[in-house]
């Protein structure tokens, strides 16, 4: 029944999720948006998802991650997990 081509939680998927979150917060202005995105990810993402996205970014990948969620991830990384 299953199709073996399916992959798991790709970092691209997490990037898309972060960009979607940013699309919502963007109209609130840069500072509020960054805080909102960071708070949303902190409240709803598992630690493993955040680690996976961080690892992806650390490898120099993640060019598709918009500037706002990137700033939000940076801000989150300054806090304990």
């Amino acid at each position, binding site marked *: *029944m299953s199709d073996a081509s399916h992959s798991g939680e790709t970092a691209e998927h997490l990037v898309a999720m972060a960009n979607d979150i940013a699309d919502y917060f963007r*109209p609130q202005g840069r500072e509020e948006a960054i805080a909102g995105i960071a708070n949303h990810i902190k409240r709803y993402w598992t630690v*493993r998802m955040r680690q996976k996205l961080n690892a992806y970014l650390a490898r120099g990948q993640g060019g598709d991650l918009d500037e706002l969620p990137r700033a939000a991830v940076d801000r989150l990384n300054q806090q304990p997990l």
Partner: protein
Amino acid sequence: MQSIAEKDLGTPARQSAKMVSLTIDDREVVVPEGTSVMRAAALAGVSIPKLCATDQLEAFGSCRLCLVQITGMKGMPASCTTPVAEGMKVTTESKALADVRRGVMELYISDHPLDCLTCPANGHCELQDMAGVVGLREVRYGYDGANHLKEEKDTSNPYFTFDPSKCIVCSRCVRACDEQQGTLALTIQARGFDSKVSASQDDSFMDSECVSCGACVQACPTATLSENSLIDKGQAEHSVITTCAYCGVGCSFRAEMRGEEVVRMVPNKDGHANHGHSCVKGRFAIGYATHPDRIVKPMIRAKITDPWREVSWEEAIRYAAGELKRIQAKYGRDSIGGITSSRCTNEETYLVQKLVRAGFGNNNVDTCARVCHSPTGYGLKNTIGESAGTQAFDSVMKADVIMVIGANPTDGHPVFASQMKRRLRQGAHLIVADPRRIDLVHTPHIQADYHLALRPGTNVALINSIAHVVVAEGLVKEDYVRERCEWDSFEKWRALVGDPKYSPEAMESVTGVPAAAVRGAARLYATAGNGAIYYGLGVTEHSQGSTMVMGIANLAMATGNLGREGVGVNPLRGQNNVQGSCDMGSFPHEFTAYRHVADDAVRHSFEAAWGVTLRADPGLRIPNMFEAALDGEFKGLYIEGEDIGQSDPNTQHVTAALTSMECIIVQDLFLNETAKFAHVFLPGSTFLEKDGTFINAERRCSRVRRVMKPKNGYADWEITQLLSNAVGFPMNYRHASEIMDEIARLTPTMTNISFDLLDRLGSVQWPCNTAHPEGTPTMHVGTFVRGKGKFLLTEYVPTREKVNARYPLILTTGRILTQYNVGAQTRRTPNTVWHDEDRLEIHPTDAEDRGIKEGDWCGIASRAGESVLRARVTDRVQPGVVYTTFHFPESGANVITTENSDWATNCPEYKVTAVQVTRVSQPSEWQRRFREFTKTQEELVNPDVFVK
């Protein structure tokens, strides 16, 4: 036939501040103005004979049996149609009255079969009772004259029989169809002696417009309309009040029983959500409980290619717990989790999340509201402060304009739809925003003022353009906003929606809705008085589902339509316990009452109660579980009452994830689509077999009561408890009420709720605590739960699911009246006579372009997958949009839907999938594999495990 347990007071209650005092047979009685003499008499303990009257229907005055004498009035007025008056003196018994009543009965009985001993209504027939009451001893006219005794029965409906030979033409059935159900399918055809009850244009019930709600059957005073179960089984001898396990209306029923066998389900007149009404599912479709597909023995297997092995409960639980512990030892504490369901009771869902958080030691618990109303929780919590609808259902009776957005109440929430239609027939205005022309748009005596037939995926564009009109045309209730809301948030919102880009004219090309209609609807909603919004999954199941919920709340706040009866924001919850399962802390980031796991004070309260340290970081949502499974990090899953293999989007992705796990434990009634990938099957119990509570769409907590022993041996909460004890986290509840007591202790909005309270009051709406000891019908009165209402910015962001040359149509999905959710229950009832397959609705233009005719097989291809369904060509859908339901697994509706989801909650975007439709001659490749896999899996089950 009415319930065996309810007293009928003859005519409906009247509400009035003015009380009227009168005398009935020398008894003083005081009743509200407008009450009938008949009801006043009943309240005073005086029974006046009656046949055409019932307190579920307005008085009709046709049978002439309830005549009385009133001092100062001429003749013998009918007590049902005569209102009380101050100082009135009523005589209900006299020789003159007795003679008239006996004469009336003589005429009735002269054309009625005298087969009482073999009649299904024997013992509870009102005609039989009245013959006794009036002392009928002979029929002077004889029985040889013209009569209706040879009239043929109509047995076309699978659930009830119409026997016109027993009809006394009292019109109770016709009036029930009109007043209670609002379908107006029945009429009295012809005149005089030829008068007869007729469905539609003298059709059979099955071929008529009848929706089989059963209101006519319940209203019938004789055996003219009788449940087939009553005919087959005989009269019940006791009844138990319980709550329906189907939709989020949460109807109260009396299960009428013979021993441990249900004879029939009769909607409870005292039911606060349904007031004695029901639909075809709740009243009739309970046969699944004893369907031969039901599994009642535990089973285990090491691999999904192995045959299932029937085992004892002890072995099944030991094996399941052992596997969960093995997986955690090998892959880590976060490698397992649990999923609960809106089909479970509150007590069950609470225990599952407790098992996961305390027993598994992580927060990997989620519920099926993830895929339906999770955006409701998010959107309402952040705007008005509480993740729930604001009103009681009865509030709709005070609405002046009703806006229905992305909901199809006549199919999805039929009993509430009947109430809504009652209000609409009284003159309330109606706005429908839906891509499809749902039945409510044009139905007997109802015509929507506006049908905003938007393109799927443009909800936020539409709500912003409605808000634009409100802002631009000065329709904001500014005093309300200044007093009740955060003014700075309002100003930001006003600036956003006031931007010319959101004018209806600018948005017309996006939404497809004519600007004039948007302007008209906005003005109507904002100015017609009490404006009430009702919405469903057409709002939530979008990439901007949460944004749309916020947009609705914003609009209601801006127009002052929150905080009193007749208004509000009302999510129509799909399943019976969506609200409750969310309330119970089933989401991975929240404890009960929507309190985040990172809130130290809240977490500590649970730690103190449960005696363990709990995690402060959120766990996996259902879609994250699939991703983690495919990554090899998530290996074990306990699923109670949910069928993610059928209901979740992108089926092939889901089944790939299921296949990659090492131990899936399914607790359910049937070998559902998920169970075909399981390693442990724990047979579940039906709502008839356990105690507990459900919380419906209006926050109403109602009792579910056990009416028979569980055929599987245990109530579901007991099974969770067994599993918890086996994994090493002790639970020792002796009764479901003890679980509710614990919930109440730990949940500020429910501290007063207990089984005792529910037994006493019938039901209560939370918040139910010290401040609101008997519940809260209307929320946000005076102030919002969060203090000041917060307007949130709702920029329209188009979905990434785009139509193009390859996928030029948009598929949207929904539900139908006679089937329920994944159909596991209703597919195993005679409801399949109405709907035995999912069909693809396609507009005639799109059909013609593709050479597709009614009934043709159509291939539907999306970026996710392909399936094949038969076509239903209809202009109910707009050009460019196709529609289907997902009640049958072989349809593969969710093979087509994608993993796009709401930005905030990951609720899937079921409502927007770009597809192509072509005429085909064979099933899809997926369907061929599905059939093969299903056959193989069914062959792996030992026939001894099924219910006997």
